[in-house]
């Protein structure tokens, strides 16, 4: 395997993990808020969060560049702190996270909505504060949804092309698997590399799915199943 391919696999996995890491806490919080509370502007929040699912990823990438370029307010502030977002792996992780976020929130929201809120009331009558109720009852019951949402987010980040391509510098070490595939695809005589990366990509996605199934079975549904 070429050095560039190993670097692409490494970068893709890193992007996947970083995206989940970035999304997890805000994602669970937002999913909980959307499933349990009504607040003014809720439809707007829902739309903005789910937007990346429907607009072309390249457009999302464009917005990210505009938002984080050195000439923008946020990008300028970050640049002053020495953080470069656009054309760096930080920007790629951010792009992956933005693309994966709606999938994570959607899945977790569904899982939270499936939990009878009266379990939470019951926990409160047993002496739990709202926060404690969330950690001892809501979160464990939503576990399969949290795992599933994280895996979807991870897989999306792993395979994200459009938005990532916009913020990536495209140079060696700045290409994830899909970018690497595209790079080789454009170069005549690199069919073998393309096929190799395609297979690796498939294997990684399948492994992520299998891992999620395992986690869900281990900590989720099976504990609720009766032995009768």
């Amino acid at each position: 395997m070429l050095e560039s391919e190993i670097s692409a696999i490494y970068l893709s996995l890193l992007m996947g993990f970083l995206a989940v890491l970035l999304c997890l806490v805000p994602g669970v919080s937002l999913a909980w808020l959307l499933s349990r509370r009504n607040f003014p502007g809720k439809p707007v929040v829902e739309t903005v969060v789910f937007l990346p699912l429907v607009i072309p990823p390249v457009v999302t990438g464009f917005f990210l560049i505009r938002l984080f370029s050195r000439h923008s307010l946020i990008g300028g502030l970050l640049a002053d702190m020495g953080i470069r977002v656009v054309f760096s792996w930080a920007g790629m992780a951010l792009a992956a996270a933005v693309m994966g976020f709606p999938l994570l929130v959607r899945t977790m929201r569904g899982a939270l909505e499936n939990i009878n809120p009266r379990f939470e009331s019951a926990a409160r009558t047993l002496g739990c504060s709202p926060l404690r109720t969330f950690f001892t009852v809501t979160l464990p019951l939503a576990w399969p949804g949290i795992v599933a949402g994280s895996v979807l987010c991870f897989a999306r980040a792993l395979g994200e092309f459009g938005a990532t391509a916009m913020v990536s510098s495209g140079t060696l070490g700045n290409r994830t698997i899909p970018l690497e595939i595209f790079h080789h695809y454009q170069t005549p005589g690199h069919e073998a590399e393309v096929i190799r990366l395609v297979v690796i990509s498939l294997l990684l996605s399948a492994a992520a799915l299998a891992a999620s199934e395992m986690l869900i079975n281990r900590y989720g549904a099976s504990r609720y199943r009766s032995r009768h």
Partner: protein
Amino acid sequence: MVELDFQIRQGSYTLDARLSSTDQVTGLIGPSGSGKTTLLMALAGIIRPAVGLIGIKGGATFFDSGRGINLPIEKRRVGVVFQDDLLFPHLNVRENILFGYNRTEPGLRKLHPQEICRLLDLGLLLERGTGELSGGEARRVAVGRALLTSPCLLLLDEPLTGLDVRLRDRILAYLLRIKSELSIPMVYVSHSYSDILAIADSVALIDVETDSQSRKHARVAALGHPYDIIAEAGKIASVGPIETVIPGELVATDPEADYSVVRGEGIEMHVSPDREDSGKQCYVTVRADDIILSVGEVPKLSSRNVWTGKIGKIERLKDAYIVTLDVGSEIRAAVTAEAVRELGLQPGKTVHAIVKAKSLRAVVLGPDTG
């Protein structure tokens, strides 16, 4: 032991609850949808009233809109046994019953796992998952879980609903044991008069009226001695399944017999199963659906109770006719429109009421029966 005076508004539904009871167990009856559960949820703090006051008589104030008090659920120390148990599916029985115990300040723990497990026979269930419990077992676990927070008030929302007759009597026996051994005040919601008679010291009746704009107004219509309130509730046809309650005394029977006899005013009732507490005062409950009416000669029947009397009145309900007849005591039977026509039922006519001993439930009075 509860004191409340509050109003809840939910859309077109209003509940005005005013209730003050010093008894250990306060029963709560009323038509379905009248707001019995809503009242319990307000006591627990799960539903917040629009205005009013909720508290324990001579104790904590949970809610007082005038003074801006609204104690959060977890600070009220009110135990709730929900209608559907709500045992946590991700925890086993032991973890469930210890859930509240572990979150109760050690200084406030008056009841301990060992004692509760003995009281409710939970010992053999501890390692089981909640999905592996029968209806009666799950209910006992739910009661134990609530008790282990050492609550200052225990709310029971139809704790015998969804259980078959034999299980009902068993769970009721457990609840009576709790009542006599632990002095925890309880509010007990039920639509079965026999449960209420067995366990409650006083009963509140919630009645609901629908006005011309189809807005529902519910209120506590009466509060008093269980038998009086149930007699009152009997006049409101929409309260629960229609039951007649007849007071009487258990009479000694042949020790071989598998039934007991209860003698009421002008009526003798054969009740199954056999009870050994002869001489005791009791109430017999009979459901209107369990009574068969017959006219003319009565052939030989396997049913142990055949009472003869005159029809007082016939009322039409949504899906049945309710015939009130005087067979020494007044009882109510439910019949179809066809039966009214074919038997020529009308006020003043003499009919026989036939009931199996198995359909009658005798409830012995007093908290000292546990």
